């Protein structure tokens, strides 16, 4: 038996571009999430319940939604399903809260940012792990409903295509809002439980008090504080449903503003994290 010194070979392949590197983080992140029971259950149950509700609503619309005209506004009732709010919040907290906080906690951020990627690449990759999972609840059921309705012949394809397009847009708005907020919360703490609690606080800690105070004071503008009410206002306007307690332009500005601000704040926060510490 011969003993030789350990050695390793020289790399002969060129390095692939940044797109490949970002995709590597995304695929690895998604694979890790689908190994976590909490993430699997949340995504599975959330998708099942919201999709089932959409299918049942289409099939049994005359019984479940009596008096609801079968026009574009029908699809607002799908978007207003409270199960969407609950599961989007749950996903953002179960999955999104750990995406950056775990890397801060294990200090794996040093490994990522000493690689040939930028802070922006890292954040895009992390957001891209979360967005498809949230969209399983926030977009998929909303797009499926008009498609099924068209197959059943309940709506004309013109309305269905409009509904699919609008569902995509408002679903993306909700997804982007929760993705940016949960990533921001995840970036400011090493403990993902704190970030998860923060996501719930943003949703229910604002929505419930806003609803109660609005009723008690009869001041409906307080509902702008609730992300869910803001989303509903935008959805109502998009699908042409009857006007609600708050106006959609203000609600849309709040949702977009918070999304952009949270994204910027996350980027600034990540730039400030010391990757090489001594």
């Amino acid at each position, binding site marked *: 038996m011969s003993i030789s010194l*350990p050695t390793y070979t020289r790399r002969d392949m060129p*390095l692939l*571009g940044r797109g490949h*590197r970002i995709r590597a983080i995304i695929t690895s992140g998604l694979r890790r999430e689908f190994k976590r029971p909490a993430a699997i259950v949340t995504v599975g149950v959330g998708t099942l319940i919201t999709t089932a509700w959409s299918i049942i609503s289409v099939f049994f619309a005359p019984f479940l939604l009596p008096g609801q005209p079968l026009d574009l506004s029908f699809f607002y009732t799908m978007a207003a399903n409270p199960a969407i709010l609950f599961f989007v919040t749950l996903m953002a907290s179960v999955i999104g809260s750990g995406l950056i906080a775990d890397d801060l906690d*294990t200090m*794996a951020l040093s490994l990522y*940012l*000493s690689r040939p*990627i930028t802070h922006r690449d890292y954040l895009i990759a992390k957001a891209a792990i979360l967005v498809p999972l949230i969209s399983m609840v926030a977009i998929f059921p909303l797009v499926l409903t008009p498609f099924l309705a068209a197959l059943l012949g309940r709506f004309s394809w013109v309305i269905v295509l409009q509904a699919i397009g609008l569902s995509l847009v408002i679903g993306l708005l909700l997804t982007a809002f929760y993705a940016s907020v949960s990533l921001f919360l995840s970036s400011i703490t090493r403990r993902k439980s704190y970030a998860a609690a923060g996501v719930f606080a943003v949703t229910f800690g604002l929505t419930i008090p806003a609803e109660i105070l609005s009723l008690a004071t009869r001041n409906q503008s307080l509902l702008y504080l609730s992300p869910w009410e803001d989303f509903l206002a935008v959805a109502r306007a998009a699908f042409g449903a009857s006007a609600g307690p708050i106006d959609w332009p203000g609600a849309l500005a709040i949702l977009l503003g918070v999304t952009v601000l949270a994204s910027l704040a996350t980027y600034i926060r990540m730039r400030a994290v010391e990757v*090489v510490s001594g």
Partner: protein
Amino acid sequence: MDDLSVAIPEGAIGLVGPNGAGKTTFLRLLLSLVRPTSGTARVLGRDIQDGVPLRERIGYMPEHDCLIPDMTGVGLVTYMGRVSGLDTNTSMSRAHDVLQFVGVEEERYRKIAEYSAGMKQKVKLAQAMVHDPELYIFDEPTTGLDPRGRSEMLDLVRLISNSPGRNVILSSHILPDVETICKYVIILDGGHQIAAGDMSRLLSGATDRLRIDIRGDPEAFVRRLSEAGFETEVSGPGLRITRQPGVEGAVFQVAKALGAEVRYMGAEVRSLEELFLDLVARTDAGGG
């Protein structure tokens, strides 16, 4: 950091300095994670502001624990290869290659959470090697290792630094490690460069002086030699004496008279630790 002007040759370079000396900032600059407020620098021929293209050619082994505990050793190294730009197959193949090189054999399939400190250090080294960089930055690679682990890690660092086309920057508080591996050293203190140069040149003292290590009373030794007209001073554990005709004979005469034992007399060679302490003391005296 301020007032740093140094041209670092290829090979193994040591970076030493007390806490707060600027070593970490220096490493951040090399990795293009911070930008200099003034001045310029080039690493491997590239401007340090180049960022991504520069980091493609650098492998960084952090000081602190930074591994993802729920991944296996081979999974993590493969993943880091892909994040560096290797395709999946190449990355997997190189992960096995470098893990074998660092001595992580069957354990590579276990989760990192189950690894010992030594194994974790080896995986940290492997992830820095996976994309085959030209420059390795090792930040305290022997921290937390037992003597055997430390020796293994130093052997690996030495093997890498002796490989053609590979350069090593070794930042460490353990000066004997730096002394045994590096051919060039940069010493920082208070954000300034206080010495930089070839290790052997820096450690060899002035040619016009001798170093004498004795067992006995050094103060009395110095007094007797000074009385005999030889310029002598106590330096660390020994003495330094200016070379002049008859000095060797005078040293032995004084030793005989005092009953002291001359254990070494010859060229003045300092350890890196002695040089470091000497320079830091001089800087403190100058600054104070």
